[in-house]
């Protein structure tokens, strides 16, 4: 089960434009699932799903914390969190997903944060403090809008450098990138242009890809897929496959006995012949040729490329 029901226990506006939200388990559990530092929480924000980095303790934490920047021109998720969400509200979320983990072999962690990109960086710094890891943190933010500065200062002490002017940050970055001991890994999170600059300069200064890690917000969200309808050729009946429900789940729910095992698109058990419509392949099992032939699909992960699909279940 990947679903998580959370209740809002606290709201805070630490700096203009940023809202921090604290969640506990809605069922009263004392702890929430442990997560890898740098993980993000996928939250249902009044109909839109958004991903927010977790900032608190990672091991059996009593609460989850996120900090959300208000985006007036976004799709509405952050506005909902700022304007609609209240203490006591229950929200649907998914188990945290890790896509920006600390490198275990790193002998130093060079952490670069820009604006609200500080959130997964804070998570890294917290873990580094607990495990005694060597960190160096550069945090660039607009004057008066540096979220979590006090916490970072407490955790990282003089290993934290703050920059409110771009020129100062860029100059210092040049020095820092050119003088890291072998074994250092770089992590960067912030506005796209800033991340592109940091990564480009690092590569130009000889950093190999294996030492560069970045978290681009809003991209690594689970794709529940577009809704479609599926017709079973033998009976002619048509079923709805809503967004977030797999074709396999829809068929099983309708009473069809489809062999299945991994539910991840790797084992090949749930292979179903396609006799109408075009499959949208999302599996790791079929070969490129088989995918192109478009006459079969792995129904546990794949969907329809278009509004309808017809399958044979004989």
């Amino acid at each position, binding site marked *: 089960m990947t679903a998580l029901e959370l209740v809002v226990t606290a709201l805070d506006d630490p700096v203009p434009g940023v809202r921090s939200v604290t969640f506990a388990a809605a069922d009263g559990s004392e702890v929430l699932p442990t997560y890898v530092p740098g993980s993000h929480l996928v939250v249902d924000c009044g109909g839109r799903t958004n991903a927010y980095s977790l900032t608190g303790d990672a091991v059996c934490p009593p609460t989850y914390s996120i900090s959300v920047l208000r985006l007036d021109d976004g799709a509405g998720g952050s506005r909902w969190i700022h304007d609609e969400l209240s203490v006591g509200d229950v929200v649907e979320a998914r188990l945290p997903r890790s896509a920006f983990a600390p490198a275990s072999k790193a002998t130093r962690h060079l952490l670069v944060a820009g604006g609200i990109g500080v959130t997964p960086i804070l998570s890294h710094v917290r873990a580094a403090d607990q495990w005694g890891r060597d960190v160096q943190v550069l945090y660039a933010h607009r004057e008066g809008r540096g979220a979590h500065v006090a916490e970072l200062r407490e955790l990282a002490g003089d290993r934290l450098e703050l920059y409110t002017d771009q020129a100062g940050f860029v100059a210092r970055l040049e020095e820092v990138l050119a*003088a*890291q001991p*072998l*074994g250092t890994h770089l992590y960067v999170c912030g506005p796209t242009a800033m991340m592109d600059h940091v990564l480009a300069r690092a*590569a130009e200064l*000889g950093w*190999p*890809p*294996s030492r560069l890690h970045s978290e681009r917000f809003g991209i690594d969200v689970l794709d529940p897929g577009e809704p479609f309808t599926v017709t079973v050729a033998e009976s002619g009946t048509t079923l709805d496959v809503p967004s977030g429900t797999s074709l396999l789940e829809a068929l099983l729910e309708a009473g069809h006995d489809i062999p299945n095992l991994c539910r991840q698109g790797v084992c090949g058990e749930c292979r179903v012949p396609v006799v109408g419509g075009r499959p949208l392949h999302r599996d790791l099992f079929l070969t490129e040729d088989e995918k192109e032939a478009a006459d079969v699909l792995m129904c546990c992960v794949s969907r329809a490329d278009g509004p309808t699909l017809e399958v044979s279940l004989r």
Partner: protein
Amino acid sequence: MPKLEHTSVPLWATASPTVAPEPDCGGASYLLVGVGAQGREQVATWADALSGHPVARVVGDHADYVGVDLAAALAEAQVGVRVRIAGPVSSCLALRGVAVNAGVEDDELHVAATAKGTIDVWCSHCTSTSAVEAEIDDVVRCRGCGRSLLVYHHVSRRTGRFLGFQIDAEALPDGLSAEVAS
């Protein structure tokens, strides 16, 4: 036997190496390591091609001593360094182990084997290592316990040794029979 490129044996350590890929030139500095005459030659060729870039050399005739110098150089190195190793296969495997253990990532490392020569075979039964002139699938005598070892297509990254195990373990010595413990 499965295709060697699907095993832990690096391509440059196989009996018939394919054309070596070009070494990466995106580093900020280069650490060139050479063992033996051909290793030194390769290091000189690389250094010429890299003129204008910061280059440090670690050369010698014995992989053990070169390994000590390499470890020392890596302890002082900065991110941006690229390590290139040239020498006989066994030296390359051993020095790759030194580099890996010092934290060098695969995309910071380039290896060019200059000759076959001896390889190190680790006896899984007595744990001693024998330096032998042999190739994968050969049978060699373990210098530690005397067993006949098959040189298996399996190489340890950390030590650079090939796995050896007793080829005739399933043959019962003459005149003996197995008993079942009651």
